[in-house]
């Protein structure tokens, strides 16, 4: 019964941090590192031991139609592992980096609440519980976006909070409609009884959830808050937001609801495809136009989420392999790129690509790891981004959607152009930088090197022997569609 600990550990750490740390942040940092390290171990253990099984935990031992249950299956345990891993590197990176905003335990406490909220969304099997955990994660995220305390950070945080509250209202109306139609809130019981109601209800519920969680996933027409929020946050938090928050609150919930609860209705898969294609093309074009490095990365995040949505919209098992694989890969390389941006900002004192120059001699680790990440995100073999994009393109052709395959190829070329710009101006420019204003320390280098190694290591997930134990169980859970309900209720 390890499922509740994914929420308990970070939440308890968040509570404990104010008590153990007085005035300085050293103990807070070590406590949160210990908490997240235990989450990494726990989620890795859970993923290996589950081996495609599903674990249902009934809170207070109430049976399902009455009580709330926590469900740990292959999909959620893979996402948990991803969240914990990125959170770990993000904390390692923060230890010294965040001191330029003051040595404060509150940062670590908020960070732990963010992790608790995301883990809660991943393990819960109840619709309203999911909503509550989502709000917990969002409140912590808004506070962390404003953490820097400068004017534009407050502005970005305000915009983010308003968008979040609008989408939360839409989701709440969706929950009300679901409850009105089925008189239950457990995802499994909804999945069973929603099929018997009229298709109009499915249409309403799907529309409300698509709009509500589409804002969280920042698919293209709903993306307006993302470039501000993600570029204003401190670098490790940008990595958390872009790397895992938009995936857990947005993409994971969308896939879970539309596949496992609503049973993948054809109309909504078409919407997935449309949103994905629009996001891929437009956001990558917008990314090229940016001179602020972090804004460029934020726009590129929208495009990469577009790939995941497009692959999920294909509705074939191979497309789902691509979606899940790209989700993991994007978490790794986009976090790495944000760490690089933070390191460059520390070392050069600017985020403007025009004021950067050649730093390959002074910042060898940053420039090499950013080269790895740029190659990975542009889809160059042997890095992970190549394989996931290749799978998505093959899946699109096989599913009889050659137009979307072409969109994916074109989007990949445009994103390559954007990252050529990053390399050409930001790190390998004509003007050689003589001296640095700040120091990139060992903690930051460690985090960057870990993720650069993961960029190579995760491409091993496509090797047939490894794919059977990692990606395939996840895809099986998703493509089982409403079979999820039988699995959860059967125990």
């Amino acid at each position: 019964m390890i499922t509740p600990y994914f929420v308990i550990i970070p939440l308890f750490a968040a509570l404990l941090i104010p008590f153990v740390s007085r005035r300085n942040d050293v103990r807070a940092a070590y406590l949160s590192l210990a908490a997240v390290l235990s989450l990494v171990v726990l989620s890795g253990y859970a993923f290996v031991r589950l081996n495609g099984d599903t674990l249902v935990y009934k809170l207070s031992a109430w049976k399902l139609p009455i009580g709330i249950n926590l469900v740990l299956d292959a999909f959620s345990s893979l996402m948990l592992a991803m969240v914990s891993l990125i959170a770990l590197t993000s904390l390692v990176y923060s230890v010294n980096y965040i001191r330029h905003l003051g040595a404060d335990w509150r940062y670590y406490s908020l960070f732990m609440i963010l992790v608790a909220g995301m883990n809660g969304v991943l393990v819960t099997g109840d619709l309203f519980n999911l909503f509550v955990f989502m709000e917990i994660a969002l409140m912590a995220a808004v506070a962390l976006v404003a953490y820097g305390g400068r004017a534009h950070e407050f502005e970005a945080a305000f915009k983010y909070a308003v968008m979040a509250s609008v989408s939360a209202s839409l989701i709440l109306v969706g929950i009300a409609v679901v409850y009105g139609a089925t008189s239950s809130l457990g995802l499994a019981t909804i999945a069973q009884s929603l099929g018997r109601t009229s298709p109009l209800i499915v249409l309403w519920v799907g529309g409300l959830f698509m709009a509500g969680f589409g804002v969280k996933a920042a698919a293209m027409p709903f993306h307006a808050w993302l470039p501000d929020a993600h570029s204003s946050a401190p670098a490790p938090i940008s990595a958390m937001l872009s790397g895992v928050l938009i995936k857990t609150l947005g993409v994971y919930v969308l896939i879970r609801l539309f596949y496992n609860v609503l049973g993948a209705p054809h109309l909504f898969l078409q919407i997935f495809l449309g949103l994905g294609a629009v996001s891929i093309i437009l956001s990558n074009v917008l990314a090229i136009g940016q001179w602020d490095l972090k804004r460029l990365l934020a726009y590129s995040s929208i495009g990469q989420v577009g790939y995941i949505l497009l692959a999920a919209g294909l509705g074939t098992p191979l497309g789902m392999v691509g979606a899940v694989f790209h989700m993991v890969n994007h978490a790794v390389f986009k976090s790495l790129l944000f760490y690089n941006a933070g390191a460059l900002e520390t070392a050069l004192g600017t985020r403007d690509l025009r004021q950067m120059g050649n730093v390959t001699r002074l910042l060898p680790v940053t420039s090499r790891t950013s080269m790895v990440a740029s190659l990975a995100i542009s889809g160059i073999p042997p890095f992970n981004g190549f394989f996931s994009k290749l799978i998505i393109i093959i899946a699109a052709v096989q599913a009889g959607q050659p137009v979307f395959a072409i969109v994916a190829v074109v989007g990949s070329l445009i994103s390559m152009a954007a990252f050529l710009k990053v390399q050409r101006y930001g790190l390998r420019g004509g003007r050689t930088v003589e001296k640095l204003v700040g120091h990139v320390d060992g903690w930051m280098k460690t985090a960057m090197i870990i993720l650069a190694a993961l960029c190579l290591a995760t491409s091993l997930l496509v090797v047939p022997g490894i794919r059977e134990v990692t990606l395939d169980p996840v895809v099986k859970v998703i493509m089982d569609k409403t079979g999820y309900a039988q699995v959860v209720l059967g125990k």
Partner: protein
Amino acid sequence: MTLYVLCFALFLVGLYGILTKRDLVKIILSSGIMGYACNLMLVLFGYRSGGVYPILEKGKDAAAMVDPLPQALVLTSIVIELGVTSLLAALAIRLYQKYRTYDITKIRSLAG
């Protein structure tokens, strides 16, 4: 039916406010109105005409009671909304300290 339409109208009032108002405080109020409309809708879904309060006592029939679960959900959702509203208000105060205005057209230092 009228109640549902009115509830939806309240939701639209909130949405209209968020989309068109330029004052930070009015935006916060609009988001509150939107939240109220959602809560009202949840309670309405649990209501049955002529229903009584859902407390089981001797000699009372459970069939005549309104559904208590939406009321519990609404309580939770009100608490969440309180948190969100106070967070928004705190951000608005800090924005005012930085810019000396609540008008968002004068605050915009970030573009699209």
